[in-house]
């Protein structure tokens, strides 16, 4: 009897905790899955086609890196109840605040364009004209926020996250060697040794794993959702699941392209999807659908990250729980970002390659600043109280941030001077 009672109460405690988790989960999963945006999908496709399964181990390492960085935004948001932009303004003053927000606007607008490029390229495989894709995406994104409820927006975003997992069944369809996958999960140097191309691809993979908008998005999302200090542990689990999913999706994509396209020169994910069509129509179609979904999810999060940041700083109402008439400026800015990115993609002869390059350079200037501010804020006793970084967290986080800063700087410089490391 005693055992039965104990079992009953343990079950009830766990089911309550699980229910609580499902209520609070969202920001971490969304930001991490959206991290595999159109640019990310292209990077993984190119990595798989060029190096096969050889770099799977590198992606496994990137999972914890993404988790540790994003987990800090959960704590910061839950403790301060401020978004990342507002937190920077408060802690470091107007100069660093304006620098961060202006750089974020520029980086996000340019990244939004790359998301639209990915989406139009993906749907053009199904003979859908770019203008229909752009208008359709804008309508979906406007429709998502029309309800005036954060909860509705989040559930729709989670549905798109679910579609992003489309690459997982593809792995079972190509039937890869489990032994090869397992062997390449151990760090090794790919055939051909350490070349400039390998270096560029490794840095591109890091660049897609940690992007500046992710810090701003997750912190604002935690605040908008109303997460409290007591919810931090659920936020951490949410982020951990998200980082697991993002790595799983990336690995699946590398396995599929590594198995079917290994040794071929592939320039983009859309090109890979076209090449895969004659080999296996389903895999080609899944890759295109996944690319479209990745672009859409990225665009949803990026446009919101900027709108939240603007709302926080200018003091506008900036919650997805507000109706359009209650937060007109917040939604106006959201629509403006969408319209701007969509129109640019439709302009014939627009310098899209230059824009993609410029995104990398802008992110290089913003990312180190955003990461340094994050570390400093998480070490400020006045701001964080007992939730500030512990010694262990500082060792891990400062180490990660230092490596990311060095590599993203090299990535940015190699984007400016393509032959510098030859």
């Amino acid at each position: 009897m005693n055992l039965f009672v104990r079992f009953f109460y343990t079950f009830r405690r766990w089911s309550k905790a699980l229910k609580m988790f499902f209520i609070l989960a969202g920001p971490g999963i969304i930001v991490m899955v959206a991290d595999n945006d159109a640019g990310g999908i292209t990077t993984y496709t190119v990595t798989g086609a060029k190096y096969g399964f050889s770099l799977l181990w590198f992606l496994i390492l990137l999972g914890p890196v993404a988790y540790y960085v994003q987990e800090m935004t959960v704590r910061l948001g839950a403790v301060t109840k401020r978004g990342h932009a507002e937190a920077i303004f408060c802690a470091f003053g107007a100069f660093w605040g304006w620098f961060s927000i202006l750089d974020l606007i520029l980086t996000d607008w340019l990244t939004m364009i790359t998301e639209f490029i990915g989406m139009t390229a993906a749907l053009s495989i199904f003979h859908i004209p770019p203008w229909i894709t752009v208008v359709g995406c804008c309508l979906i994104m406007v429709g998502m926020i029309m309800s005036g409820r954060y909860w509705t927006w989040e559930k729709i975003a989670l549905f798109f996250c679910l579609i992003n997992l489309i690459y997982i069944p593809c792995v079972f369809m190509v039937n890869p060697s489990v032994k090869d996958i397992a062997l390449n999960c151990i760090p090794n140097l790919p055939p051909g040794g350490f070349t400039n191309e390998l270096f560029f691809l490794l840095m591109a993979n890091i660049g897609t794993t940690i992007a500046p908008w992710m810090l701003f998005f997750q912190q604002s999302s935690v605040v908008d959702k109303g997460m409290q200090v007591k919810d931090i542990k659920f936020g951490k689990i949410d982020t951990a699941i998200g980082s697991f999913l993002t790595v799983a999706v990336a690995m699946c994509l590398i396995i599929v392209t590594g198995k079917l396209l290994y040794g071929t020169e592939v320039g983009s994910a859309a090109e890979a999807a076209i090449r895969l069509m004659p080999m296996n129509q389903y895999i080609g179609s899944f890759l295109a659908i996944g690319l479209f979904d990745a672009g859409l999810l990225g665009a949803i999060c990026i446009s919101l990250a900027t709108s939240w940041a603007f709302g926080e700083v200018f003091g506008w109402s900036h919650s997805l729980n507000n109706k359009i008439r209650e937060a007109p400026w917040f939604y106006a800015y959201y629509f403006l970002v969408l319209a701007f990115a969509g129109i640019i993609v439709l302009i014939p002869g627009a310098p899209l390659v230059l824009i993609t390059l410029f995104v990398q350079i802008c992110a290089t200037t913003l990312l180190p600043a955003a990461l340094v501010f994050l570390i400093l804020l998480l070490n400020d006793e006045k701001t964080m109280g007992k939730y500030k970084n512990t010694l262990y967290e500082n060792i891990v986080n400062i180490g990660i941030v230092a490596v990311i800063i060095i590599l993203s700087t090299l990535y940015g410089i190699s984007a400016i001077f393509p032959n510098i490391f030859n």
Partner: protein
Amino acid sequence: MRISSKIFRTMVESIQEINRKYKKPQIQMTLFVKICLMALRVYLILLIGVMIFKFVTML
């Protein structure tokens, strides 16, 4: 014309208010914080210098 100038004026006033509101940094300015901010300034100046160099040599 009037509407646009009104919007512009409102924007300028908002920016001035933000600058006043966040004039003083709230973070405890420890030596570590000061060093980090200084390093960040140097890093950004160097990076922008590299970009300007590239832009000038491209012209």
